[in-house]
């Protein structure tokens, strides 16, 4: 027995010795670039370059990212999308959830281990900042992947939408304003392949390429296909799946697909590869918008580069039917979170997004810091605020999220800290006035081994059902990954096992230092109250609803208008009844003297 444990310890330490530490020093600053050749603009770059460099590591490595904010005029915060941050919730990144925004001139260190293989990405999680440029791939290599040795080269490809104007300007002037009452999202100006266009993706004949694809956009899902080539999907969002043949994928923002693509055995010609916007997600499609972006699988630089062919319809593989390599049957839920997605206008005339009737408003104190400073009250959802839509979850339970989409748009939802089983996903409703909602008595299609990932879309007027295990104590954000909708408040907070967070985790000093430097509160409940945690006066709330019908102002106006009208009619009557007297006068005048021809009434 002791030998066995000794051997186990040796084995473990061997792994530890093999696991390296990867350090990145990031200076976040402004960089000029022109990715679509149409418009030179300033981006948020890292270390003077845009696009920002990818982070690469091996599985089980420790990653340390030392971020200094040299933007000068904006705070920032970085989230490592898809990484569980198990035991290190403070490194997850969303502002006012697990940290304060890092003000200009300050720095923060993200220090965590990565125990998941596959393709991820990192991006700003402050306001709607990342489409201004702070996003790049995060690649985790795994020598033990199921398809090891089946490919010749491991590479990556990104797609995104692209805006010429800066996000803060668009938000204030075009989006979150009362002159945009329908909440129409700003239309992107172009589509990008690898932060560029018309790229030449060099390939050699008769080779298999492992291509990790990520959509780093702000809004639009894209269809991706390679003319003349089919491929196998082998991983989604860090979950290995049984290799599945496909010719086209539909990838929403924040999702990742890893494919194995085998090239042809001739170098006669090059083949177009296309990424195409799902234009149904756009409020309207302007005539000037080119919603496709092209590249070529380049076999031979000197061969022809044909134009892509038009297609009649998008024949993409529905990711619902992917089967994970580690097969799990649907979990039995212990607890259900049920929300409906709505969009509506509030009293300031602006269009907001709601889960049930709550539009997320960030608290004064990041939720994780409230956990750390609220002792036993951390299990009472009240302390996290009335407008943060917080649910407190137990430890080692199965939680089911039922989401009914009462909006006619497609939305990709992302859960921090977990992957989840996609147990059900309804088709789109047949028309704009019908809604398909979850009915546990009449369930829809459930696969034997449900697909798992960390970002999944719901169809217009449809619903989905997700299940996951609460095996990762931490404060986890659940939100729509369309940046515009996040700004509109389409988010909620899951506080998972708060007592375990308190007992096992520590917030590093430099995180608190960033709060102090920015003047943010870092202790107490959502209103910053450290004395009486159940007293939330002064907390941030969503705007009041629009007045329904007559307010005091309207009634006063109506009453005064009626009084004026009656007064006016009174005067008219008086004038009419006084005709007799004046007429006699006039007649007398007329008979006595010539009548005055310049009559007022004519």
């Amino acid at each position, binding site marked *: 027995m002791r030998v066995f444990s000794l051997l186990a310890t040796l084995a473990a330490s061997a792994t530890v010795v093999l696991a390296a530490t990867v350090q990145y020093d990031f200076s976040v600053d402004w960089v000029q670039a022109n990715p679509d050749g149409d418009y030179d603009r300033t981006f948020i770059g890292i270390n003077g370059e845009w696009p920002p460099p990818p982070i690469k590591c091996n599985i089980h490595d420790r990653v340390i990212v030392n971020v200094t904010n040299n933007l000068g005029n904006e705070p920032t915060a970085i989230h490592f999308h898809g990484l569980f941050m198990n035991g290190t919730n403070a490194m997850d990144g969303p502002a006012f959830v697990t940290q304060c925004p890092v003000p200009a001139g300050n720095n923060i260190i993200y220090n965590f281990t990565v125990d998941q293989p596959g393709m991820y990405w990192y991006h700003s999680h402050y306001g709607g900042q990342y489409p201004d440029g702070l996003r790049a791939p995060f690649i985790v290599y795994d020598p033990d992947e199921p398809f090891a040795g089946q490919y010749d080269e491991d590479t990556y490809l990104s797609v995104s939408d692209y805006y010429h104007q800066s996000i803060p300007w668009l938000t204030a002037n075009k989006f979150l304003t*009362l002159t945009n009452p329908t909440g129409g999202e700003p239309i992107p100006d172009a589509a990008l392949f690898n932060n560029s266009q018309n790229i030449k993706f060099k390939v050699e004949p008769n080779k298999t390429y492992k291509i990790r694809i990520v959509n780093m956009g702000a809004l639009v899902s894209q269809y991706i296909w390679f003319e003349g080539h089919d491929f196998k999907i082998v991983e989604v969002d860090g979950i290995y799946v049984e290799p599945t043949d496909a010719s086209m994928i539909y990838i929403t923002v924040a999702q990742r697909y890893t494919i194995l693509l085998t090239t042809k055995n001739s170098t006669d010609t090059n083949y177009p590869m296309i990424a195409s916007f799902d234009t149904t997600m756009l409020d309207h499609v302007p005539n000037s918008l080119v919603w496709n972006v092209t590249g070529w699988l380049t076999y031979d630089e000197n061969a022809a580069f044909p134009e892509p062919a038009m297609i009649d319809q998008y024949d993409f593989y529905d990711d619902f039917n992917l089967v994970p390599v580690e097969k799990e049957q649907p979990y039995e839920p212990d607890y259900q979170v049920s929300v409906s997605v709505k969009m509506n206008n509030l009293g300031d005339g602006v269009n907001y997004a709601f889960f049930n009737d709550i539009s997320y408003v960030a608290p004064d104190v990041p939720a994780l810091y409230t956990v750390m400073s609220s002792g036993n009250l951390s299990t009472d959802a009240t302390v996290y605020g009335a407008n943060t839509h917080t649910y407190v979850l137990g430890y080692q339970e199965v939680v089911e999220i039922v989401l009914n989409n009462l909006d006619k748009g497609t939305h990709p939802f992302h859960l921090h800290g977990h992957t989840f089983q996609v147990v059900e996903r309804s088709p789109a409703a047949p028309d704009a006035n019908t809604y398909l909602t979850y009915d546990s008595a009449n369930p829809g299609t459930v696969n034997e081994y449900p697909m798992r990932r960390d970002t999944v879309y719901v169809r217009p007027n449809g619903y989905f059902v997700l299940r996951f295990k609460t095996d990762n104590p931490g404060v986890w954000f659940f939100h729509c990954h369309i940046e515009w909708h996040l700004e509109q408040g389409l988010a909620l907070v899951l506080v998972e096992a708060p007592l375990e967070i308190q007992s096992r985790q520590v917030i590093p000093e430099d995180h608190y230092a960033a709060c102090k430097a920015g003047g943010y509160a870092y202790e107490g409940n959502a209103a910053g109250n450290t004395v009486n945690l159940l007293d939330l006066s002064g907390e941030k709330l969503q705007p009041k609803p629009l007045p329904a019908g007559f307010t005091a102002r309207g009634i006063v106006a109506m009453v005064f208008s009626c009084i004026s009208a009656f007064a006016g009619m009174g005067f008219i009557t008086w*004038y*009419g009844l006084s005709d007799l007297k004046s007429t006699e006068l006039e007649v007398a005048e007329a008979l006595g003297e010539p009548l*005055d021809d310049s009559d007022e009434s*004519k």
Partner: protein
Amino acid sequence: MVQIFNVSIFFVVLRESLEASVVISVLLAFIKQGVGKSADDPKVYKALVKHVWVGAAIGLLICLVIGGAFIATWYTLGTNAWGTSEDIWEGVLSIVASIIISIMGLAMLRLNKMKEKWRVKITKALEGSKVRGKGWFRRFMRKYAMGILPFVTILREGIEAIVFVGGVALSSPAKAFPLPVVCGLAAGSSVGYFMYKGGDYMKIQYFLIVATCFLYLVAAGLFSKAIWFLQNFVWSHRIGGDLAETGEGPGSYDIRQSVWHVNCCNGLTSGGWMIFNAIFGWQNSATYGSVLSYNLYWIALCVSVMLMIFQEKRGHYPFLKSWTEKRKVAKRAREEKKRLDAMYQDLDAHETDSETKEVSISVV
């Protein structure tokens, strides 16, 4: 219902036809009382009456033709050239209509004064129509003076009506014209008839007071609507294409300008509320502009009525007593001079002409 009956048109036509029928009834009353030597000869009486009616009928016919042609041309040339500036057109036309109605409205309440004035005018016209000179035109005028007067009056009132109706109702659909025109003519003619019959003056006056009250409610509503349309134009341009999507709900109005808003009862589109909109200027989404303008209109009206009553009682507007006196004196001096000149001319003519000084109307 509002789509086939435009209230403003009704009131304009009512007012003009009232005036015209006053003229006719005065003329007929004169003839009855013996002007034109008709007291002696029933045949002469009947002929004179016929002249009046024929003259009136021809005048009316010409007016209807001109009016119809005008409206038809206007509508075939297409009034839908407004496009995106429709709100501005509606706004401006409504202000014009409101002003026109306001100015002419109070005159209806001085109908008796109108009648006396016409009596005097016609007397002068008949006295003064010793149309000198030969020439077949002058002879024709003399012969048919009793027919020409109503003809000219009706023509003038009718053209006035067409112009006013045009100003008041160009934004209505073409089928909103015939019914109110007919109703207005009918109502105006019947009031004139009652006046001729010497009917109960008070009853007529009550009718006229009620009619005028309605008229001014409509005018106030029009003024309020005009301001509302102009504000709506500004708002629809700020939110661009979204206006179509927002319907009556949030976003279809500017929350900062809103005094009240209900998501129903739209005065421009929904059934019974359109009548409220036509008569009172009701909007389901009122702005500060539309409410303030409504109240200011009534205040202005009250002040105007007070000034007019003052003037009628005292003969001058407040603070303008001496100025009015001076004008009256000057006017009288001019009138006196004209009368003396006419007398001298007469004496000259009498010497060279063989005609008598009698009212020279001969009947064939």
